[in-house]
């Protein structure tokens, strides 16, 4: 399906005014609602706004209770617009798309999106087990010991089989992330690792080693999107949302192709709306639940040909500064942070930092004018929600 620009575009009509990433990685003494409130306060303060300014609230499966219904009350919000879209770790990019559309339509002035979770210190995981056990596919997938890493390993194994991708090439993704994480004082893992160290770390599920897997951290993050009128009233430099795309890729009635992701559809939609191509992008935040997630996503977004991901990520291509496509300069989910087992939020946060020129000086991309953030939720092995945002330079 060819991507086409919708007749009414959101291009540039909504701007990201506030972002916040919780600095904590282990939060045993905070409740889940408290962490949502902490990150909401952080992003609103970043924007120069308050809870009273918020007229739209967005949450996903990590929000406790009734989702937005519960959290709007807990936070003390007065909202005329809510959205509980749940696509796993990509949900926050989908929310940004929906918020941008609502802002462009004039329904919303200030949208707040929050994420919080405590997978490290014992909080309940997102989503109810009853919800998942009643899924129509449940008994045909859940009886076979498919861990998260096992599922992604199935995708990696097939990619290797079809395209000759190697463990050393996958390791390059982790190496690049670790070179960035050494500069992030909040990163869960701050040590630079080598390809050798990645491929000699314990095998979890062939071909994925422990160091091919993201970290497990408590924490969260939040975004504030505003209209052009609100943005004009703020001191904060705001980051325009130029293009958005969402897709769901699934097993296609039992004919799953494990070698591609939903980015094959969400990417072209976002590029078309923004009116740019992959070659125009200065920085990318790519959801990195595992090294294979990054490699396949880069192919599917068009940064290299299908099957060439392994060669593309080699030789420091993803490192900042100096690489041809600097990625995840905060250290990403592989090293820095993967709050609530959902990495989409922090992808947007670091992209905004780059566009503001507020990334760590050691990894700031010079003259960063166009950034892409991509989220993947669900599993490469079954069904995933994919979402892509193209963001412009803060003005």
């Amino acid at each position, binding site marked *: 399906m060819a991507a086409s620009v919708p007749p009414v575009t959101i291009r540039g009509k909504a701007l990201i005014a506030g972002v916040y990433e919780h600095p904590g990685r282990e939060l045993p003494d905070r409740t889940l609602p408290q962490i949502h409130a902490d990150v909401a306060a952080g992003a609103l303060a970043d924007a120069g706004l308050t809870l009273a300014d918020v007229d739209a609230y967005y949450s996903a499966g990590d929000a406790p209770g009734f989702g937005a219904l519960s959290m709007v009350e807990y936070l003390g919000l007065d909202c005329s617009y809510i959205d509980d879209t749940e696509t796993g770790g990509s949900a926050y990019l989908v929310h940004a798309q929906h918020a941008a559309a609502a802002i462009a339509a004039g329904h919303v002035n200030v949208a707040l999106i929050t994420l919080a979770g405590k997978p490290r210190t014992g909080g309940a995981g997102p989503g109810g087990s009853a919800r998942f056990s009643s899924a129509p596919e449940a008994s*045909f997938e859940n009886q076979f*010991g498919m861990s998260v890493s096992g599922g992604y390993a199935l995708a990696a*194994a097939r990619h290797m089989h079809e395209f000759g991708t190697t463990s050393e090439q996958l390791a390059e993704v982790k190496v690049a992330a670790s070179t960035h994480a050494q500069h992030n004082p909040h990163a869960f893992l701050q040590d630079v690792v080598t390809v050798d160290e990645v491929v000699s770390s314990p095998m979890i599920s062939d071909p994925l080693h422990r160091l091919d897997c993201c970290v497990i951290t408590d924490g969260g993050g939040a975004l504030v999107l505003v209209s052009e009128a609100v943005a004009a009233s703020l001191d904060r430099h705001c980051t325009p949302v130029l293009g958005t795309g969402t897709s769901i890729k699934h097993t296609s009635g039992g004919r799953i192709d494990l070698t591609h992701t939903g980015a094959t559809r969400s990417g072209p939609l976002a590029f078309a709306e923004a009116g740019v191509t992959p070659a125009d992008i200065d920085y990318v935040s790519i959801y990195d639940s595992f090294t294979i997630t990054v490699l396949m996503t880069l192919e599917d977004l068009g940064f290299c040909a299908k099957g060439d991901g392994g060669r593309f990520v080699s030789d420091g291509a993803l490192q900042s500064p100096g690489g041809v496509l600097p990625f995840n300069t905060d250290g990403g989910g592989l090293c820095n942070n993967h709050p609530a087992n959902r990495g989409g939020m922090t992808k947007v946060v670091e992209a905004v930092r780059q566009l503001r020129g507020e990334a760590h000086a050691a990894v700031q991309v010079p003259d960063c004018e166009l950034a892409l953030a991509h989220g993947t939720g669900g599993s490469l092995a079954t069904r995933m929600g994919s979402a892509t945002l193209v963001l412009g330079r803060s003005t």
Partner: protein
Amino acid sequence: MSDLGPSGLPVPPPNPNLETQRFWDATAEGRLELPRCDSCGHVVWYPRERCDQCGSTSVTWFEASGRGTVYSCTVTRRIPGSWRAAAPFVLAYVELDEGPRVVTNIVGCDPETVHIGQAVQVVFDPTPDGPALLRFTPA
């Protein structure tokens, strides 16, 4: 920890519903039955009473061959929870000769020898409730 089936792997009972009862009843009798769309001929997976290709809600069940090929596989060596003791074990997608790619385990062989493209044959691993899980062994 669930009980172990003859395969040596856990056999967590499935949760049949009105659309899948026929599938599970057949497995209890050692048969693999699949729904085929009456309108376009598509063999539907996971089993359901509708065709995801053409939208038809008319399907006819037929007995499948039980033969297939490994589409992808991984030896899971570390896994939390109730499967921990079963590791290392092979998680796989098997492409049935009838078309669908199904999540399963490859059993009855050295996990290190399983590979993509390998021909496999279904084995029925009974759960305590009666229905059996589809697992596969080298053909």
